Every structure is written in structure tokens, then in C-alpha cells.
């Protein structure tokens, strides 16, 4: 650090400069707040985003809560090929396969659980899926629970989700596992 020159060591000038800067911010923001309070359009006096009510737009590439894509008839597009379960580095997907009534389709998952307490949101499951049956585009990020059981999302919950709006705002409500305790 270079030694301070006389003006800086005298301190008073530097202090007044600093106070001038913060005071300028105060009066500029105060004028903007007052202007908006009286209905004038203009820049906001604060950069705050009031989170639960306002949200930043999310990137379209954001990896958020998974959803299982549905067929026309509402059944899962998933064929229980176990690719995602195999590729998952966190071992958080658990699939139990079942025969599909339609002979054209090989299998269908009887159970498809994702333990979000383990999930690392790497997106490998989405990439591995040959049927484009699992996606991470719901825009839902708020899933917390007081118990580990409350983090396990089942097939029905994942099937009920919709993709997010282009702004990233989630379209479906956050599913809450039945065994989640407040």
C-alpha cells in the first residue's frame, strides 16, 4: 500500500468527499422515492427485488425441479429403461418398472422417485433419457423440508408439473410430499 499523502492524512477533506458521495445517493434516491410515491414514472430509488413477490427472470437453461413428460393420454412418456437411474451420480432416482398395457410400448414405471435431498442438479438424467421423458424446466427452486422423507418426490407429483413460463416463473404450484411435516 502506498503511503498516504498529506491531504489524505489530514483526513477531513477525504471524509467530506465520502460524506458527499453518500449524501448524494441519499438525496437522489429520496427524490426518486418521493416522485414515485406521487405517481410520477421514473427510475426506482432502490435496486431491491422484493423476493417472494418479485422475482428475477430465470435463464431458460436453468436446471430446476424435474418433471416427467406426459403422453397424450396422460400416462408417463417414460419407458423405465433405467438410463437415468444408471447415469445419476448421486443415486437419487429409484425406478420400479411395470408392463405397459399397450404392446407397442415396452414398459412403464410403477414407481419413479427422486430424492431431492441427494440430487445434485447435474442434469445428466435429462441428457441420458432416450425418450425425452424427464426434463428440468419447471422453474421451481423452493423445495425445502424439515425431514429427509419430505424431500422424496414421487411419480404422481413429478407428472403433475408444467414447464415454466419463458420468464422462468413457475406455472405449477410447488408439490408438497404427503409425509412432509411443517
Amino acid at each position, binding site marked *: 500500500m502506498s503511503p498516504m499523502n498529506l491531504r489524505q492524512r489530514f483526513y477531513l477533506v477525504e*471524509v467530506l468527499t465520502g460524506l458527499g458521495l*453518500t449524501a448524494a*445517493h441519499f438525496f437522489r434516491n429520496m427524490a426518486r*422515492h418521493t416522485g414515485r410515491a406521487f405517481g410520477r414514472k421514473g427510475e426506482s*430509488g432502490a435496486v*431491491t427485488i422484493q423476493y417472494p413477490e418479485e422475482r428475477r427472470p430465470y435463464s431458460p437453461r436453468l436446471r430446476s425441479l424435474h418433471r416427467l413428460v406426459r403422453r397424450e393420454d396422460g400416462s408417463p412418456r417414460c419407458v423405465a429403461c433405467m438410463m437415468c437411474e444408471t447415469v445419476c451420480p448421486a443415486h437419487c432416482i429409484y425406478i420400479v418398472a411395470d408392463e405397459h398395457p399397450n404392446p407397442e410400448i415396452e414398459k412403464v414405471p410403477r414407481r419413479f422417485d427422486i430424492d431431492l435431498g441427494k440430487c445434485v442438479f447435474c442434469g445428466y438424467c435429462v441428457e441420458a433419457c432416450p425418450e425425452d421423458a424427464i426434463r428440468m424446466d419447471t422453474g421451481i427452486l423452493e423445495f425445502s423440508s424439515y425431514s429427509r422423507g419430505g424431500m422424496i418426490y414421487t411419480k404422481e407429483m413429478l407428472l403433475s408439473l408444467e414447464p415454466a413460463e419463458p420468464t422462468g416463473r413457475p406455472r405449477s404450484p410447488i408439490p408438497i410430499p404427503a409425509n412432509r411435516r411443517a
Partner: protein
Amino acid sequence: MLIDLAIAFGRVAFVMLFVLNVAALLGWVERKQSAIMQDRIGANRASIFGITALGLFHPLADTLKMLTKEDFRPARADRLLFELAPAVSVFFALVAFASIPFGDTLQVAGRVVPLQAVTLNVGVLYVFAMLSLGVYGVMMAGWSSANNFALLGGQRAAALMISAEIAIGASIMGVVMIHGSLNLMDIVRGQGHLLWGWIPAWGIITQPLAFILFVTAGIAATKRIPFDTPEGESEIIGYFVEYSGMKFGMFLMTDMVETIVLAGLSTSLFLGGWQIPYLFAEGFRFPWGSGISLSPLLVTLLQVGAFVGKVGAVIFVLMLIRWTLPRFRYDQAMRLGWLGLFPLAIANIVLTGLVLAAWGTR
């Protein structure tokens, strides 16, 4: 007799309510002002039936929180001193405002009432005595907590306050010399004179150096940032580590009240107290000859308003300083107090003496 009692009660009540209400409001002012300075919004979530009122309910919520928290006392703490310390702190801060005048005189039922809680011939000394006694509360808190960090914090506070108060005492000597009185009312009246017929003789004009020294040392004496080494909220914990609940709240309140006392004192000594330029007892009289005559009651109201406004402005500046400057290191604060402020204050006394001797008194 009854009227005298009522008048005395009214004077004290006005000062007490003013100080306590502004102290309660200062928490809100501090939050909101810092937020606006930093391009934020500030606390705005506390609501009563959905009304948030710009976050004005937050001090209320804070107080409720403090009152309902556990009041914990460490097992090895000195019981009496531990309980006494916050009360001592807040008491001396509250009584310090008593001799600060908030207006000229008011005619009530044939009596001339000076508008200050207590009329004291040694008003300046009284305020400083009370502010200095506040250090006992801090030291008691640090010592009685049976905690090494609290003890160190208390000692830092004591050292800082003593070095600051010597600088304060020396810096106001110039003002006292000019007005030849220790009575704050006389000092404020003296500032109503006009220099060369048009400049109001406020302390900030006659004693600019003393004003800067006084405010600097005053901030140090009230232990606020940039001189908050005794507390060091975020890392070096201070003398009130072991306090919780409303006892801790009383230390916070002491902080706020001391800020108000400092603002009131700088207003009285340097910013003309309740004086409005060119406003005299019978109305405005401008140096170019014209004037507006006003009724005595209106004049008094204007003066009280001017005092409150000036105190508010000083508080704004103090908050601005508090939210702008980084903290002085302990040795830097000591160096500034003893090697910076104190010699300058002495030089100011000598200079004022020479000017007064050359010019004649006043």
C-alpha cells in the same frame, strides 16, 4: 403554587417526551436512512392489519422482541452491578438533555417561563458531567459480566470516552469564552446577535474549528461508528456481550439518546439553538430594514420548531457519518483524540483568547 408545579411538570415532560420519542424513532431513521443511502429499501415488513406505514412499526416490534426475550445473567456475574449497569447508562444519558434550551421564554399565567427543563447556571458543565458519568455504566457492564471480552470492551470504552471528553471540554471553551457564560440559555441568546449587522453570530461562524472538533469528539464520546471500538458489533465484541433482552435494549437506547443529546448540544452551542436568523421577540427584522411582526406565541412556536429542525438536521449528519466512514483502529482513535483533537482544541482556546483580547469582549 399549583401553576408553578404544573409549569415545572410541563417543562420536564416536554423534554422527556421529546427525547424518548425521538430515541424510539431513531432506530427507524437509522434503518431507513442507511437503506436509502445504499440504494436499498430498508425494513418494511412489520405490519399491523396489513398496514406497514413505511416500516414505522419495526421499532415497536423490536421493543416487543426485547421485552419478551430471556433475561439471562451469567452464573459468575456480579449480580448487583450487572443489573445496575444498563440503568446507570440510560439514566445519565436521559437526564443530560435537561439543561438544553428548546426555546426562549413563554408567558404562562403572568409568569415568564424559560423553555428548558431545568435552568442551570452551569448548564454546559452539567451536560458534560452527565455524559461523563455514562462511562460508569459501561465500565460496570464490562466488569460485572465476568467475561474477559466484556471487560476488555469496557476498558476500551472507558479509554476512548475519557480521551474524547477531554477534547470536547477543551473545544467548547472557545464558545464559553465568547459568551462569558456556562448557562446554555445565555449562550443561545448570545448567538442571536448579528455580526456587522447581518451575519448571525452562530457558534459555527465564530468557532468553526471548535465545531469540527466538538462533533468529532462527540461521536467518539457516544461510541458510534467510526469510533465504535468499544462495541465492534461485527467482530470484536464489546462490553455488553453478556446482556440479553431489554437490558441489552437499554444499552441500544443509551446509544440513541446520547446521539440526541449530542445533536441538541451541537445545536445549542454552534447552530444557534432555537434562534432563527433575523427573528426577534417581536417578529422578523431584516437587515435591509423591512420586517414582519408576529405574535409572541407564534415566535415561540417558530423557535421551538427551529430547534427541533436543527436537531433533526444534526442527527441526519451524524447518521450520515455513521453509515459512511469505516471504523478507526483503537490506537488510531487514541492518537486522534490525544494528538489531534486535544492540541487543536487548546490552540483554538489560545486563538480565541487572542482575538477576544484584541477585539474586546464580544
